[in-house]
């Protein structure tokens, strides 16, 4: 990649401890604009600790955290958002009983009027929401429709469109496909590609290499809190990725053990 511009987001040798538990150790990663960086790992690999550091929920204990070349230290997710790092948490992104437009602008509602007469600019909010959803290929006819009546994929789309609209430069997607069916996952993956086309740096966290492989420009595998590997697209095959994710050598060993157990009498 072009070395002239610093990555949108970069961590160098970041570690995180919870008491005597090493949640993350010595993680380095750079995220560039217009790239999808897939962070893969099995349960307990440290994915969620990693997102929480990136999104400002937790502070890091060691290492450096840089946003566009400047070292930062987030105290809250709000700090991260202000620097253009938006996180879409799986299933924790929208309020099901609220309408699409209310969800879209929740926390950053556009207002008109002053003082006690300050009120939400409903017309503008609805129009903007429609336009932004249109850009993602979703035609929302009824802005007052509760988000809960949308499909899982569309709900993720609302959250992604919202993050993009509010100026996200880095979009962190936490397991966006894990609760979805095959077809719905495909819909969400298309939004991931779209966000990349619009020049965002996307961090796509998943435990499903089959979802990561088609959209990723770069693959990072975590295992037991450590960086197991970091490949660019084309440097690693799908099968190899699957193998790395499940612990590589460990999986081979497990296969051997299981086979020998099954073969053993009694």
């Amino acid at each position, binding site marked *: 990649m072009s070395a002239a511009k610093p990555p949108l987001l970069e961590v160098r040798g970041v570690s995180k401890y919870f008491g005597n538990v090493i949640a993350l150790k010595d993680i380095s990663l750079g995220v560039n604009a217009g790239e999808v960086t897939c962070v893969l790992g099995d349960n307990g690999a440290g994915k969620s600790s990693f997102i929480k550091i990136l999104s400002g929920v937790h502070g890091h204990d060691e290492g450096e955290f840089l946003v566009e070349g400047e070292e930062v230290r987030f105290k809250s*997710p*709000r700090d991260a*958002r202000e620097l253009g790092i938006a*996180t879409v*948490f799986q299933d*924790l*992104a*929208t*309020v*099901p*009983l*609220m309408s699409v437009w*209310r969800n879209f*602008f*929740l*926390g*950053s*509602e556009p*207002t008109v009027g002053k003082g006690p007469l*300050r*009120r*939400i600019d*409903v017309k503008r909010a609805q129009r903007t929401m429609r336009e932004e959803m*249109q*850009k*993602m*290929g*979703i*035609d*929302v*006819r*009824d802005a*007052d*429709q*509760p988000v*809960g*009546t*949308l*499909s*899982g*994929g*569309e709900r993720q*789309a609302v959250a992604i469109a*919202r993050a993009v609209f509010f100026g996200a430069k880095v979009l962190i997607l936490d397991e966006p496909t894990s609760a979805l*069916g*095959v*077809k*719905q*996952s*495909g*819909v969400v*993956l*298309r939004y*991931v*590609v*779209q966000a990349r*086309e619009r020049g965002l740096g996307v961090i796509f966290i998943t435990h499903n290499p089959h*979802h990561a492989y*088609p*959209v990723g420009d770069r693959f990072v595998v975590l295992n037991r809190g450590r960086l197991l590997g970091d490949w660019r697209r084309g440097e690693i095959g799908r099968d190899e990725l699957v193998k790395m994710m499940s612990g590589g050598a460990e999986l081979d060993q497990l296969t051997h053990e299981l086979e020998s157990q099954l073969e053993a009498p009694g």
Partner: protein
Amino acid sequence: MTEADGGGSPAAAVTAPGAPAPEPVADERLANIGLPARLMRRPEVGSLLGALVICAFFWITTDVFGTLDGIANWTDVASTLGIMAVAVALLMIGGEFDLSAGVMTGTTGLLMGLLTTEWGLSMWPAILLTFLFAAGVGFVNGYMVVKTKLPSFIVTLATFFVLQGVNLGVTKAITGTVRVAGLGDVPGYDSASGLFSSTFWAPHNFRISVVWWIAIAALATWVLARTRAGNWIFAVGGDANASRNVGVPVARVKIALFMTTAIAAALVGIMIALRLSSVQAGQGVGEEFTYIIAAVVGGCLLTGGYGSAIGASLGALIVGMAFIGIQFSGWNTDWRFLFLGVILLLAVLVNNLVRHRAEGARR
């Protein structure tokens, strides 16, 4: 209905980098949302129908119910109830309960009574202090709920009993009886009662509290529908985590709601105290459930995130009409509790249906 397909392309399509933005596709499920469906989505529909039925029933079966005197009577009952139901509805939409709301009307009335009759304050400073005290209790309720993360049901149940004990204990210790009386002689009584407890439109004598109720319901409706605060109230009750993730100050919203409820209770406590010019130590105990029933009948979900101030007002109107209608019919007024129970059950069943429609089968 299980698959909503944005464009019909399978997952493999995304492998092509630089795939063009898919054509916006109209979702066939959204095509025909007509007026009836839109109406059904409003939380207050059920209570509006209920109110019409009950009104028609007593209007036809009794002589007095439909006269202006009769209307003045049931709007009076509905008004103080309605003010509380609106505040409780906001709190319930925000996902919390306040079981101390009923006893607070007694505590605040007693406080105002003691400040004036025992400690010599004139009416207006006492009213101001009473509102401040209520705001303080509301803050404590909210702060405890937010900090301990315990269910507000338990926290405010504790407040309920504490206040009930204080009401009786302090009143007995200071006055030697279970009531505070003689508010009518306090300087400033006339102007205060003019604002809070007078009547208008003689000879039918509608209560001024009806005007307060309508104004508060209108204000609450505007806040809910058109302000950021209203958006946040729905959000914290609907999903506190999602709200926090997008930057809604969840703790602040909840504490403010508890304070609003307590201040509304102070308003009602002051109204009742000024009207009777005395306060019973047991005033308001048990009323909290009537407020919650009115809010639920008005379409508030017990789980939060859904409801309306107009609905809660209609719920209060139903309760008010039923209480007075039962009296006018010459039935034993004890039957009103049975009535409350039945409409509560009906309302919860209807609300459940509404929520399933709103949340969708997918969730």
